């Protein structure tokens, strides 16, 4: 592929690597927040619904406290997302200039989705006690729906970047554009969407559970804490094993559509039948060293067949290969954590169903405390696998990232500024969540252990 599209003349950007890192930093900030935004409101609504059904004030208290968390995180999600949409122009003007007419629609529809989300979050958060209970509950439903449609739209863009279609190139110009089939007629969309959506529930489930598990280790274990942990933990425990199944599906899609990404995931240099999989290890000089080999592992994983042929990295020139170790390590991190989370979830479900109570072991709660942050790590590692595995292309096999980048100078300054701002933001968010969690509980002391 030598002819590539570019609306504006590509430039040499000395700081391409910094531009990519700046993009990555912005995503790492945005994604965990939106993982919450697409899943947590549903949990809050569920608790509010329980409150309306039973009239038990404990549920009311819980729903209100969680609402404040939703509001604070939503605000931060909005601003980090705004920065991302600026960066589409600030960092990758040629990507947007060339393909805006193909993928832009996804973001335009997403804009409406965010609009609705922002409106109903405003109504929901400020409407406690001001609206009738039913109206208030109803005002939360659009939040759950728009959380889903918002991720659908954004991910349709990402799926298009990974598996572009819906247009033709003529003399470097984009013609015959069909945005709907580009975005939604794309087979690559569905596994990404489902995998990300479930990841949202895993992340918010384990993170919230981790907070109450921590409280339990500190000796706070009243009915309030038990209720507050049971809801997110049950969701996460059910979702985690499902995520492994969905991840298997994602792997097969990658194998069919992006063989080079798959080769980088394993570090497979030569095309091989019955390719093995290596756990851990380091890719160097064309092979994985110090890893634990699982014979035929990769063929099984990618094609569900003992002797399937897996394409190697050497089928493309070195300049078209992604950085193998980053992709490999991120992938293994995600899968490793995903497996552990699934086991933890199954253990919890077993105790819940068989013994009809919450687990009692201290070790279980210690594991949950660790599972919270680990689930966020898995989320980010998964995105790094997807995005870095796509390199050196911004639009897979159509536009190299180096052609997309801005010609403006000053990227290092922007990067440094953003790093400082996000560091402050992270401290601020941590501070506010701590404050919110320390606000006194307005329920009877015997309901929560002191």
């Amino acid at each position, binding site marked *: 592929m030598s002819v590539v599209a570019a609306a*504006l003349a590509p430039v040499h950007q000395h700081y391409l690597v910094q531009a990519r890192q700046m993009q990555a930093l912005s995503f790492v900030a945005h994604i965990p927040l939106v993982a919450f935004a697409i899943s947590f409101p549903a949990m809050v609504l569920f608790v509010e619904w329980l409150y309306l059904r039973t009239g038990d*004030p404990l549920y009311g208290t819980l729903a209100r406290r969680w609402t404040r968390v939703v*509001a604070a995180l939503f605000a931060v999600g909005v601003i980090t997302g705004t920065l991302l949409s600026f960066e589409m122009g600030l960092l990758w003007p040629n990507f947007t200039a060339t393909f805006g007419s193909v993928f832009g*629609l996804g973001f335009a529809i997403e804009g409406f989705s965010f609009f609705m989300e922002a409106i109903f979050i405003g109504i929901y958060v400020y409407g406690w006690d001001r609206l009738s209970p039913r109206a208030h509950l109803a005002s939360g439903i659009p939040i759950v729906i728009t959380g889903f449609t918002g991720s659908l739209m954004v991910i349709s863009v990402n799926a298009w970047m990974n598996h572009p279609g819906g247009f033709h190139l003529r003399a470097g110009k984009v013609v015959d554009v069909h945005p709907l089939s580009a975005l939604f007629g794309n087979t690559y969309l569905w596994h990404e969407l489902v995998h990300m959506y479930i990841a949202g529930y895993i992340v918010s489930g384990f993170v919230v559970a981790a907070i109450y598990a921590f409280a339990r280790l500190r000796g706070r274990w009243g009915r309030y804490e038990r209720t507050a942990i049971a809801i997110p933990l049950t969701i996460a425990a*059910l979702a985690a094993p499902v995520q492994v199944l969905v991840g298997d599906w994602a792997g097969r899609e990658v194998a069919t559509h992006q063989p080079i990404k798959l080769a980088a995931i394993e570090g497979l240099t030569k095309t091989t039948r019955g390719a093995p999989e290596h756990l851990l290890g380091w890719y160097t000089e064309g092979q994985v060293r110090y890893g634990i080999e699982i014979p035929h592992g990769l063929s099984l994983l990618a094609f569900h067949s003992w002797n399937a042929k897996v394409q190697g990295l050497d089928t493309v020139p070195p300049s078209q290969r992604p950085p193998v170790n980053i992709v490999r390590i991120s992938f293994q991190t995600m899968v490793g954590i995903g497996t552990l989370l699934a086991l933890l979830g199954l253990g919890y479900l077993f105790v819940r169903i068989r013994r009809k109570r919450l687990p009692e072991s201290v070790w279980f709660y210690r594991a949950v405390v660790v599972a919270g942050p680990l689930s966020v790590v898995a989320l980010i590692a998964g995105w790094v696998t997807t995005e870095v595995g796509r390199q050196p292309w911004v639009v897979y096999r159509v536009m190299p990232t180096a052609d997309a980048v801005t010609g403006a100078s000053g990227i290092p300054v922007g990067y440094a500024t953003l790093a400082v701002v996000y560091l402050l933001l992270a401290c601020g968010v941590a501070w506010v969540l701590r404050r919110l969690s320390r606000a006194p509980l307005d329920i009877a002391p015997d309901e929560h252990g002191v």
Partner: protein
Amino acid sequence: MLKALPLVFCLAGLALYTVLAGADFGAGFWQLLAGRGSHAERVREQAHHSMAPVWEANHVWLIFVITVFWTAYPEAFGSIASTLSVPLFIAAVGIILRGATYALRSGTQNRRELESIDTLFAIASLLTPFALGAAVGGIASERVPVGNAAGDMFSSWLNPTSILVGVLAVATSAYLAAVYLAADAARLGEPELERAFRARALASGLVTGAIALGGLAVLHSDAHSLYHELVTGDAVSTLIVSILAGGATLALVFARSFEAARYSAALAVAAIVAGWALARWPTLLPGLMVQQAAAPHDTLVALVVAVLAGGAILFPSLALLFRLTLTGRFDHVGEGATRVTGQVLSASMPKLPYRAALACLIAGVGLLNVAEAGWAHALGVVSLFGFIVIGFLALVPGAFSREEAMTPPRADEPHGPT
């Protein structure tokens, strides 16, 4: 026609953003000028209170403008964003800081924390409209050529026209905010605050008008063709509308009809945006006509349909939000809002849901992980979601009443937290 329609959407969005988010930025301006003491604190409190429920929604107008613009005029977007990267980045940082202060404010406990957060808020509120205005000034004065960062990184936005528009943006924001806050104070029955904001509105209105008129002189020397079009071409009618609406707003504020003043202020702003567009029509950037810049036909059709359909859902929802805010439904805690029906959830854990969940799981594995066809994968995903939902409903509601010796709430006694 089709090729220009998205531009109309963008300009309408820009006008709405200026008016709605402008009021929001301006609130920060008044917080900065409020000074210290209890009166100042009330000014600040009021400025925060009336914006908090709506700022996120107001803010999305900018996202709307950006996304519609890059879909419909991708090349122009790439050129603008790369040349004007500095002011746009500054605006983005300003937006981050402002949004962060909304989130942080909910955690404050004492006045000192509140004041430092409000100061950050105020500084960011000045920075963002100025930077966005300066970027607009760069486009208006033809300093953004087509190309990847083809214009000058600094003089494209540090020039007389940019500074004029930037300052005008800050002044307009302050003015809009004062009008809005005066109206809010009037509604809340706070005569003292109302007086304070009315005085601010009149003063800032005069200043804004003076800057706008004086600005024509700046345009005359710095962006002559724009000036020429504005005072002699098609755009002159918009200039007149803007001046009349601006004057009317001042009169309305003086007469304390704040509600009407809001609309005429919006009209004055919208007229300026329209004037800019008319003066430049049909060029988007130097050498790039709207016709050439527009995306292919299918994209434009899909975009226009999406915007119209989106608008049909959006405007009623926005109206609901503003009605709740403006009619003060968000101000006072109502009575009886927490009345609940009070039923005890079933405490038993029936077997059936478990079997159903398990069946879903097994079906899901078969369809998603064993089968190859696309339809099978779709059904598999549905089954797996079924597993999660049924499993959750089977496990969770029963959990609480079962555990330990805990008395279920009495069904006949409605009670809620205070």
